[in-house]
């Protein structure tokens, strides 16, 4: 497997996401994540595509 090529945005996005949580308690971060999921889901706005993403996210939890 060749090393993945990061998009010019990847590092910026990750950094900004971490910064968004700076200084919050775990509970506050969890609530922020919930709001974020809702906002992003609204941006995607495609129930079929979202369901695929939900399944992928869930897969790790189910092992």
């Amino acid at each position: 497997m060749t090393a993945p090529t990061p998009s010019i945005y990847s590092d910026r996005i990750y950094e900004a996401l971490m910064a968004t949580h700076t200084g919050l308690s775990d509970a506050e971060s969890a609530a922020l994540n919930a709001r974020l999921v809702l906002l992003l889901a609204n941006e995607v706005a495609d129930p079929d595509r979202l369901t695929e993403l939900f399944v992928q996210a869930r897969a790790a939890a189910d092992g």
Partner: protein
Amino acid sequence: MRFDYPAFDYIPPPGLTEREPRHQVAIIGAGPIGLAMAVDLATRGIPSVVLDDNNVVSVGSRAICWAKRTLEIFDRLGVGERMLEKGVTWQVGRVFHGDDQIYDFDLLPETGHKYPAFINLQQYYVEQYLVERAREFPDLIDLRFRNKVVGHQDFDDYINLTVETPDGEYEIETTYTLACDGAPSPTRRRMGLPFTGQDFDENFLIVDIEMETSPFATKLAERWFWFEPTFHKGQSALLHKQPDNIYRIDLQLGPDADVTAELAEDRVLPRIRAVVGDTPFKIDWKSIYRFRCARLENFVHNRMIFVGDSAHVVSPFGARGGNGGIQDVDNLGWKLAAVLNGASPALIDSYNTERVQAADENILNSARTTNFMTPKSATEAMFRNEVLCLARTHEFARRLINAGRLSLPCALDSPLSTPGKAPVPPGAAMIDAPHDGGWLLEAVQGDFTLLSVGSARRADHADLRCVHTSDKTAVARYGDGMTYLLRPDGHVAAVFRDPTPADIASAQKRATGEMP
């Protein structure tokens, strides 16, 4: 002003002293569904006998929200205008989280419809109006109060009913029997039919109060819904206005509420004061209910047909109980009349197919509402609260808030439909529009109708009622140049551009159950 419950007369039925001729239709239950069924059949010349174990209209407001499509059906049955006149048309809705208003909305009705999105009117008024309407058909509707059906036997080509009265029992034979005996349906229990679905572990207290002073800032009626109000910690609450200065308050009590204790006056009064403050009020009616979504697998069992709550129940938020039941009536009336006049019994099967689909849609919507209102885990509660939080600033999040979705007519995926594409597609219910100084719904409901629109060749057919519309609102809603075949219940059977008589005949055959 409280409702005065008149007692209907018990008249000893002829069956007590002599064998009655076989009845074409017996209707068990004189609630809104049974009464509407009798009136619908009477408008088609079909006689029925209505058997009810009681002799007063329903006690308590019960079903109060009547949706636009239901009002349009009631218009056809002759009580819609009276309901509209008496009912409360609310306009402003407010949603609160804690003590803060998250947002409000104005339900200004779209113009060009005879009826608004919905009205609030106590069930007892609807039943009273329907009884009075039924009495306008003395030769066709035989209303029998304090006539309780206690047994029945299906002899394949007829049903024998055993009926108990204050003067003893008697028996009648019927070609079809319609079980309109509500959610606890003794008929369904007698037949041992499974009534399966989802039970929600959540108790709700509903209280009707009479209050002279309006809690609302203006004269307009409003609907207030609270998530987690401080006056009722961690739960939800709803305030709705009904006619006669009666207000409906719904309070979520949680899964572990002691139902008997919660109904005691000394427990109810402080809860109501917490909502309305120091305003004087009187309690008119109170009840506790649990959410349940369930339906029969089949609504049709040979000559016994289940209609309304006896066939399906949903949780009340979203107003899909009474409204779903009236749409059952609308669907069954013309089909049963046609079959009694010689049409294919396949039409009755299509009642089952279509209304099972509608019941599933209602159950899906009402289960979604219930799940939003009663989060089952800390994570669900967190998402719910963050939706409420975002809703203060984001329009999209308001659309996620689910305290009951408005009941809309089901778009039927039906064996009676001829496939086609149009602004109002096959299976959908008609959309009202101005027509000839009145309304389109008045011109097209009740019989098969060929409707031509705008520049389409004027509908002309010997065996069908033909209506042409050039009204610009109607043309915009139905599409210029289209021709529609509408069923007697106002649902679209087929859509055409320039149909030949053979196209129309074929679609009509299909719509009457004569073709696959």
